[in-house]
């Protein structure tokens, strides 16, 4: 039999049929909902359609909810409060499982899916949020969709897709000390560009990926969309199965054994061909920081703000000049000389317990620099509880970080958690777009350990200099 990729195996298993024009109707195993879903339910109601498969649908609010309190009534904007309320009401009337603010399982939907064992190898997973690519870390095909598509999935449990191309990115070798999954994905995006994987599904492979924890793999797959990819995925292995075993929605007993047998057959076959392939040397990757307004604008921490005069063409020169103007940076400045006003440790990219441990290891015994406001926003109520059992909250509090409730928070500020205009934020989130964290906010993306290092030194700092010897 022809060797097949993980992607090909999942695609063919979910294909209900394919039209002559190449569009395939695919079956959706798992549909995740967040509190931006109200317009999709409104579309459904306008047509008088029921939810087709509520048992394959799960909801938890993350975008509009406060992280300073658990009280929805504290949301001042009635339209925003209505978004959070609507998810509770819409899931209740459709019989969809819902983790609300009083439930410790609530959290950022892309943290909750894997944490609950809802996201599993071989599944086709969609959600009305671009960072749905996160769930591909478990060996699933997972991608973000728009509101009209959310309504389509609610009504039919299916989605139309044209088959994407495949891109294999192998990261080979061992990562250096202080270098994390976030640095790897920033290095990949800097290498291929923000449109480098448009129209493709990325499969991450190689010894550095195989050696990575599930948390790290989730971080990698999460930012696939920032390289333009439709999805990112990693062939499941023992790390995947150990992570899933015993989680609330993972199969148990005989069903677990049967699932395991099926999952073991999912990985890309030796000799399977991809439309494109790229190999990176893990040893070459340093802690990364972004300087501009696209995730592709990432450099190693020992680098300098680039000079538009050295751009390859006029288009790039204009684009760099525009970014540096917005970011208020001078060409040639060492990245390690740039001071920060804010630090945000959180988001679906980096708010799992491993991320908080890495940040706490740097914060321990140190103080947030004078004038810097630093936040830690755990990805879910369960991450928060676990971190508190480990005493991480006390380490952060002693250092002067704010310890908050779970939500998307300052990644995009829809709930009002914003970076004030003109302020510079070291952020573990996924997008440094103009105004992403608030109008006029200046975002620099980095790993949790690097963000903690920026918090305690007040400037971008090579975290390797702060690690215990």
């Amino acid at each position: 039999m022809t060797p097949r990729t993980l992607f090909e195996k999942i695609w063919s298993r979910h294909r209900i049929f394919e039209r002559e024009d190449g569009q395939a109707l695919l079956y959706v195993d798992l549909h995740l909902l967040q509190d931006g879903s109200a317009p999709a339910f409104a579309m459904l109601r306008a047509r008088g359609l029921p939810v087709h498969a509520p048992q394959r649908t799960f909801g938890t609010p993350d975008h509009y909810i406060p992280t300073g309190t658990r009280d929805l009534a504290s949301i001042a904007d009635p339209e925003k409060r209505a978004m959070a309320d609507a998810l509770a009401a819409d899931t209740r009337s459709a019989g969809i499982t819902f983790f609300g603010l009083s439930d410790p399982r609530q959290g950022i939907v892309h943290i909750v899916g894997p944490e609950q064992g809802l996201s599993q190898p071989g599944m086709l997973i969609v959600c009305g949020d671009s960072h749905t690519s996160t769930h591909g870390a478990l060996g699933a095909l997972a991608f973000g969709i728009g509101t009209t598509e959310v309504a389509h999935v609610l009504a039919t449990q299916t989605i139309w897709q044209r088959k994407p191309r495949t891109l294999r990115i192998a990261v080979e070798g061992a990562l250096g000390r202080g270098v994390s999954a976030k640095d790897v994905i920033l290095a990949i995006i800097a290498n291929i560009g923000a449109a480098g994987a448009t129209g493709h599904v990325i499969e991450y492979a190689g010894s550095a990926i195989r050696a990575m924890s599930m948390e790290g793999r989730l971080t990698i797959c999460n930012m696939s969309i920032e390289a333009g990819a439709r999805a990112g995925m990693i062939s499941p292995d023992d790390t995947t199965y150990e992570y899933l075993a015993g989680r609330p929605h993972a199969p148990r007993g005989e069903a677990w054994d049967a699932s395991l047998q099926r999952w073991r057959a999912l990985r890309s076959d030796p000799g399977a061909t991809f439309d494109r392939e790229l190999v990176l040397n893990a040893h070459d990757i340093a802690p990364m920081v972004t300087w501009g307004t696209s995730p592709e604008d990432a450099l190693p921490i020992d680098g300098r703000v680039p000079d538009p005069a050295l751009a390859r063409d006029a288009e790039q020169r204009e684009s760099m000049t525009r970014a540096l103007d917005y970011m208020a940076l001078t060409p040639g400045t060492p990245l390690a000389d740039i001071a920060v006003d804010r630090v945000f440790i959180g988001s679906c990219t980096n708010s799992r317990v491993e991320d908080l441990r890495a940040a706490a290891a740097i914060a321990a015994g140190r103080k947030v620099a004078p004038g810097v406001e630093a936040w830690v926003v755990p990805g879910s109520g369960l991450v928060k509880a676990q971190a508190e059992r480990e005493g991480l909250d006390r380490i952060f509090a002693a250092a002067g970080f704010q310890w908050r409730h779970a939500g998307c928070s300052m990644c995009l500020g829809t709930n009002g958690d914003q970076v004030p205009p003109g302020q510079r934020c070291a952020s573990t989130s996924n997008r440094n777009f103009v105004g992403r964290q608030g109008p006029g906010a200046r975002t620099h993306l980095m790993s949790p350990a690097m963000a903690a290092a920026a918090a305690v030194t007040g400037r971008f700092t090579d975290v390797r200099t702060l690690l215990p010897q």
Partner: protein
Amino acid sequence: MERFERLTSVAVPIAQPNVDTDQIIPSRYLQKPRGVDFGPLLFRDLRFRADGSETDFILNRPPYRDARIVIAERNFGCGSSREQAVWALFDYGIRAVIAPSFGDIFRGNSLKNGLLPVVLPETAVMQLIDGAQAGPGATLTIDLASQVVVAPDGVRHAFDIDPFPKRCLLEGLDELAYTLTLHDRIAEFERQYTG
């Protein structure tokens, strides 16, 4: 969905790569229900200052303010899946965006809302941008049936589009209505599907 057949209009060049959906509509407006006019929110922070006064962003300048076509550089609509980005363009009056590449989710959302995404080679797009900057007021024509963009100088650029979304746009068809007619095939798949 509104039909798209043929459109002749001034085109506004947005000569930047990676125009993300956070630029097209900032996240602080996403909670608004679909019933509101999203047009005033299009490129909100590029078009307006904090006090509500207009900037000199190209879409505020005549004749571009009446444009119904956007020409942009690579990766237009990258980032967030927010369909409100398409609603903002559509409500403003934009019916087509021409670019060398699009964010995948934005492109899908466009096709479901009567907004035509046209992919042309980078060199052709750059010529169109240069033309729109040099000769403001000149009009482009996009003919979907024959899949061609006609530049002001008469140069014709052919483009590709999948047959089904093309038909949906030409006839104003709705994808969900079509999928619902396939109910029996979906039910049959579900009967045999083992998870």
